[in-house]
């Protein structure tokens, strides 16, 4: 699987745990400082998980760019008219 190297730190996590924490980490949702530290330590030493994190980060940017929509001028005017009449 990966080339994860355990540096005999008790709190270090394996690849499966790192993958499990990956999205929450990238989304800024890992609340526990110990888990965050363990995850960061892991990707510093595991090339496979580091690359995975890079790809996921890039994919998120592309998803955001592809899916961002803009309300048309007509919809904006419709909503403002609606709110003016509340």
């Amino acid at each position, binding site marked *: *699987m990966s080339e994860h190297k355990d540096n005999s730190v008790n709190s270090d996590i394996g*690849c*499966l745990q790192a*993958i*499990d924490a990956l*999205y*929450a980490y990238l*989304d*800024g*949702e890992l609340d526990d400082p110990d888990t965050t530290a363990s995850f960061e330590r892991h990707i510093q030493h595991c090339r*496979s998980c580091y*690359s*995975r994190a890079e*790809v*996921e980060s*890039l*994919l*998120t940017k*592309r*998803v*955001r*760019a*592809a*899916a*961002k*929509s*803009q*309300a*048309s001028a*007509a*919809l*904006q005017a*419709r*909503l403002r008219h*609606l*709110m003016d009449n*509340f």
Partner: protein
Amino acid sequence: MANTDSSRRFFSASIEDSMDALYGVALRMAGTPADAEDLVADAVAKAWTAFATLDDRSRFRPWIFRILRNCFISDYRKKSIRPVESAYREQIGDDEDDGLAALLNQQSDEFLNWWAEPEHEFFNDILGEAIMSAIDRLPDAFRMTVLLINVEGLTYDEAAEALGVPCGTIRSRMKRGRTLLQKALWRQAIDAGLAIEDDRQGSTDE
């Protein structure tokens, strides 16, 4: 209780800030721009009527997205061009986490090797379309979760409130939704001749 002038100002400003996001999410639910615009207008009207029930104004975003979603489910889903996934269940439980992690582990390496090739910079437009197509084909629960968090920037907590599920469910859906997204993109790349399937992965698909 009648809404005050201060309520009206807050509501209008919040809707102004949210118009693009509401339309973007509505479009991915309803499927057509016309239905999406009607859906947003209906949701805004309902939200104003229910504004007194919003106790904490800092929760306006999840609150308005929840109203949008409820509006879609009650009034629009029947005529939506999307298939109704009434039989769909969360499809993930704790007992499946190991399998999920294994899938991610295998698939991401393959996806990574393809994605990381420099010439894919030339395919940005195609990738944009491919990404939208892949998002549109995600099961509803995952599509909404990925959209609210990755596109509209809601926190997991806010997305949980908007979709009416526990925070842990959002976390699971993100993992599963992103895996399905990668899988769909990978499949599209193979079908379009942009990537070559690795036979070793053939038996690992669901």
